[in-house]
């Protein structure tokens, strides 16, 4: 069987801002003119000290129908990996090949507009996530029923409680049906009973044979749903294999670090 996602030596380097302007992430025209005047021939890449490798030479393959976990501590490069796979940021080097239709879910409710009604937001959000209008039409009732907001579907979402808002946002995302689903920790929102429903939906998704790349802090989710996993730290893959093994490795590592 051939892989559906092929990641080959992906690296991503970020420039970290100099100390003077930590909050200003964009440069002004004046700064860039001054920079060009100072060094008119190249040298625009700046100081090597200001560079950080968020991801370094990561390679792995995901098989069709597999639920694949990515775990690691904060700042390990998980989000960077997700953003590269989702085509939001471009890698500095390396290559990714995707052999199926991919939808990625980095947060729920992307593009929700507070002034629009629930109904309008379902269509807008669905379109943003890559659903066709027909698909949204056919799943609309299901989405609304899942979110349990039937009575308020024509009310502007700014009047929703935060729970209702999250439920509707999750419901749209849960009804995406791509071949490959890339998910960040957006699962399980709302109150206890709705969380249970979200996890149930997640079970359905994993059992339907859809390929899922799951990035999470919840080791329980990984052992429960994933067949294989990788452990990222400092931008590098430090452990790969069966999900339970990788989780164990991560736990013993964390335990060793905290006891020393």
């Amino acid at each position, binding site marked *: 069987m051939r892989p559906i996602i092929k990641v080959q030596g992906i690296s991503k380097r970020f420039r970290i801002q100099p100390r003077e302007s930590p909050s200003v992430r964009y440069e*002004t025209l004046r700064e860039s003119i001054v920079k060009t005047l100072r060094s008119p021939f190249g040298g625009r890449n700046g100081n090597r000290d200001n560079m950080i490798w968020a991801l370094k030479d990561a390679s792995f393959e995901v098989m069709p129908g597999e639920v694949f976990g990515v775990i690691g501590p904060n700042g390990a490069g998980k989000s960077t990996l997700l953003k590269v796979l989702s085509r939001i940021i471009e890698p500095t080097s390396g290559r990714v090949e995707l*052999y*199926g239709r991919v939808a990625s879910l980095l947060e729920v409710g992307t593009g929700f507009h507070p002034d629009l009604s629930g109904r309008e937001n379902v269509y807008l959000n669905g379109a943003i996530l890559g659903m066709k209008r027909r698909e949204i039409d056919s799943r609309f009732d299901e989405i609304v029923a899942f979110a349990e907001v039937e009575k308020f579907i024509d009310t502007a979402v700014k009047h929703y409680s935060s729970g209702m808002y999250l439920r509707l946002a999750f419901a749209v995302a849960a009804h995406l049906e791509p071949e490959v689903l890339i998910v960040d920790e957006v699962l399980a929102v709302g109150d206890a009973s709705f969380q249970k429903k979200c996890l149930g939906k997640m079970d359905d998704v994993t059992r339907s044979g859809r390929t899922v790349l799951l990035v999470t802090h919840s080791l329980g989710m990984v052992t429960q749903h994933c067949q294989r996993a990788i452990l990222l730290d400092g931008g590098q893959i430090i452990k790969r294999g069966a999900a339970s093994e990788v989780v164990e490795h991560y736990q013993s590592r964390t335990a060793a670090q905290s006891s020393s």
Partner: protein
Amino acid sequence: MTLQAARTADSDHSNIAYDLPEKPLVTIEAHRSWVPLNIRDLWACRELLYFLMWRDIKVRYKQTALGAAWAVIQPLVTMIIFTYFFGKLARVPTEGLPYPIFFYTGLLLWTFFSNAVNSGANSLIGNSNLITKVYFPRLIIPSAAVGAGLLDFAIASLLLIGLLIYYNFQVTLGYLMLLPLIALTTLLALGVGIWFSALNVRYRDVRYALPFLIQIWLFVSPIIYPASLVPAEWRWVMILNPVTGVIEAFRASLFGRTFPWGSLAYSSGFTIIMLAYAAYTFRRMERNFAELI
């Protein structure tokens, strides 16, 4: 559990038939240089373009008492002020046209153009939440912002029709040129809007410079005065402005005057080059949007 075991376990409950293509659907790589426009990608997202335009239109007049009437109020009030100051007081010549209709024809196109450029230029920044969370061809965003202005234009045009009837103007063959002219204005606004939207992500100076630029642009366009008022030796300066040809042609086709083919050809050429250059700049800068915004 070994890797092999994991794979077999997985294939047991797989009930989607995966028929993987020989070539990858998508390849993600670092691009050192410029990437050509991916028309197929854009076409696949036409529904998203429609939804974003629809959102912009829906949201624009939410919680306003007057709603879509604002689309008419803006050029109407400006027309009244211009009629008084530039018409009744300064007595600007208008090539024999009544002041209200002379100013309104110019303002109608100009209001659409300047609003489209302005909302296009600020569209990427305004949608930064989308850019950092979802992938789709980024060109959709400024295109939707420019396209959404067409509805306001259509609403404001109703008043023009009223004025044409009131002043008893006859329908002429020139009306055939109206649609191509509106399309040209839209494309010009799209070119300028796309270019500024990309620059705006990197240089927030655009936000401050653009309103100023648009104001100056109004004064060097034949909106308050006819291009014929400018002395012959300076007319070329006037015509360098791509908006001149469009507005002169717009008036010519409405009022059956001689058609300014020369300056219109220049405007069209300028529009094509501007669009190509803007798309090039946008594509070159696009890959860094999520990091810079």
